[in-house]
């Protein structure tokens, strides 16, 4: 992700499109938001979404620059093009926000998520769970005679598919990180 090198505010080259089409169709967008890692920054971002009635489908946050104290928030949201643009403009005007990137429109990107999946079972179910895990390239992180904890990374829909297959095989618990995303290419 290349910094846009924009001053705060916007121009026609900004992350958000000032000439957005008005349409009623909901779109799913993945936003990468670089913020100062200061007290309450996550509350600020989440408060914006809840206060203005925007959707959060997934949200991850971690400090990515320990010297500059910058965190990267990846948020997956759905809304009409107009709402998506409002979200970006509202995020960008926050004092703690340095950059907002809409990975969905800025070009091809990769989206990955990590999941831990616990499955309990014996006999054929246990064997089937292990076989499916191999197909999905999940790793076994913990095992007992009657359970596994698998670790799986991939696009969110791959994880959805795996979890669904585990339901009849004794799914006990799922923990997911939410999406981390990044633009493809050298920039």
């Amino acid at each position: 992700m290349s910094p846009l090198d924009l001053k705060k505010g916007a121009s026609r080259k900004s992350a958000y499109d000032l000439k957005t089409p008005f349409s009623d169709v909901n779109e799913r967008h993945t936003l990468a938001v670089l913020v100062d890692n200061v007290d309450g920054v996550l509350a600020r971002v989440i408060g914006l979404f809840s206060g203005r009635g925007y959707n959060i489908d997934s949200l991850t946050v971690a400090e990515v620059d320990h010297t500059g104290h910058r965190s990267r928030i990846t948020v997956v949201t759905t809304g009409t093009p107009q709402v998506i643009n409002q979200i970006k403009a509202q995020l960008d005007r926050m004092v703690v926000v340095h950059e907002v990137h809409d990975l969905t429109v800025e070009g091809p990107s990769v989206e990955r998520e990590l999941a831990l999946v616990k499955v309990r079972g014996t006999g054929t179910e246990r064997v089937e769970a292990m076989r499916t895990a191999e197909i999905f390239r999940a790793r076994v992180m913990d095992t007992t005679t009657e359970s596994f904890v698998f670790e799986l990374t991939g696009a969110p829909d791959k994880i959805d598919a795996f979890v669904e297959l585990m339901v009849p095989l004794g799914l006990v618990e799922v923990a997911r990180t939410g999406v981390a995303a990044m633009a493809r290419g050298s920039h």
Partner: protein
Amino acid sequence: MTRMSGAEIVVKSLIDQGVDTVFGYPGGAVLPIYDEIFKQNSIKHILVRHEQAATHAAEGYARSTGKPGVVLVTSGPGATNAVTGLTDALMDSIPLVVLTGQVPTFMIGNDAFQEADTVGITRPCTKHNWLVKETDALAETLHQAFHVATNGRPGPVLIDIPKDVQFAEGSYMPPKKAKTSHYQPQVKGDMQEIAAVVEAMAKAKRPIIYSGGGVINSGSGATQLLRELVSATGFPITSTLMGLGCYPASGKNWLGMLGMHGTYEANMAMHDCDFMLCIGARFDDRITGRTDAFSPKSVKVHIDIDPSSINKNIRVDHPIVGDVGHILEDLLRMWKADGRRTNADAVKKWWGKIDDWRAIDCLKFKQEGNIIKPQYALERLEALTKGMDRYITTEVGQHQMWAAQYLGFEEPNRWMTSGGLGTMGYGFPASVGVQIAHPEALVINVAGEASWLMNMQEMGTAMQYGLPVKQFILNNERLGMVRQWQELLHGERYSSSWSESLPDFVKLAEAFGAKGILCDNPEDLDEAIKEMLAHDGPVLFDCLVEKHENCFPMIPSGKAHNEMLLGENADTANAIQAGGAVLV
């Protein structure tokens, strides 16, 4: 580096920021700062009677001077009382710097005495806020706070300062050294887009300029440029409630305010125009009415410093992000350099149409009999104060709309009203703040009796500081605006919209040591107003007016601009239908 206590750093930072006045109320968690205030003479502290009033007074100070208003209150209840004013300032883009005391850092989270999660509570009602946990960070944070409050779209900021941070020693940093590089909103507009606007202006057949509070936020230069633009083009101009004064009410291109209670000509022109130049206004729902019927035939330009204002409610064709002053300068320069002319014939025809609408005379009213019409009271107030160095504040309700309609503003920063939040109780403390900033000026708060009671304790402040604020109460003994809606919407079932058990306002004034005047007859009105103006001190003017007067014109909620209700003979029975009734 100079070492000093946190409290000293606070006061020194304020002084270095050029602050001359702080509105506040003390308490345990800010005592060290109050102690420092006691020891110096550069900053005047105004002791209000309620923290909400401190915030509104600071808003009045800010709006009438263009400088940020500063507030100092204690933790817990002091901070929570300030929440309404913070929200009000956020909605109306008023720069405030609010300092709150907090319990010591080591007690935070323990439900300590007078602890409240102030940054948590005020996060959604400030532009930004900070909890400062180290004395060394205090000076820089304070300077950043002033920077954020006043740059870009102005707004309120809050700094929460635990008591131990006020006592501890730290190093001071002057304003110039503070890091503010990260928050630098764009002020220059996109030249390509400005060129497109110049082109569209030259072509326009039915143009209108729709100006707003952003022009006033931008400063006196912007107002000047706006006036130049109007005279260079001859375009008609209207303004929102928040923008009154950015173009003179006596100017010949002035159409009056637009919107729900705006003039017929302004709203009809907005509806029928083919070119709309929106300058520092935000397409608020009081303006647009039904959005799908809003100005259907126009090319729309929107100049705004906040990208989130653009395309929020109404889709525009030419968005320009930046500061009004900077953009108008470029726009005018380009207009002149290109030797542009307007489509004079078409614009002349358009004025003909506008004059027909004007001829309807939508603000006419009849003053008959011996009961004062509120419109008449304001018309007389206007006539008797015209040309004076006058500032007007208002409360919220019918009287506020009548004040906007019947008083004329020639200059910006002369009109202080709560537009976005519509806070009853705003006007009196705001008038206090304005009078502090302009000790020699005539400051009048046009009030409704119900709103005025919401912050009447400020009589004490007005008396203590000898502030000759005039409280001009249009007393209809009703929550008038609510009653009007109940008439139009709820079958005249006047549920709790009476002002019962009102005080005797003259005696009330006297109880505070102020002057009270009662007027209930149109014939006595002029003399009574003159008496109010002549008195050198606070006056409580109880003007008994017609009780069931409605405020017209009115665009019923859920209707379009060209579906206005005009005065007297308006068919109000079925004015608002089910769809509109859910709107407020």
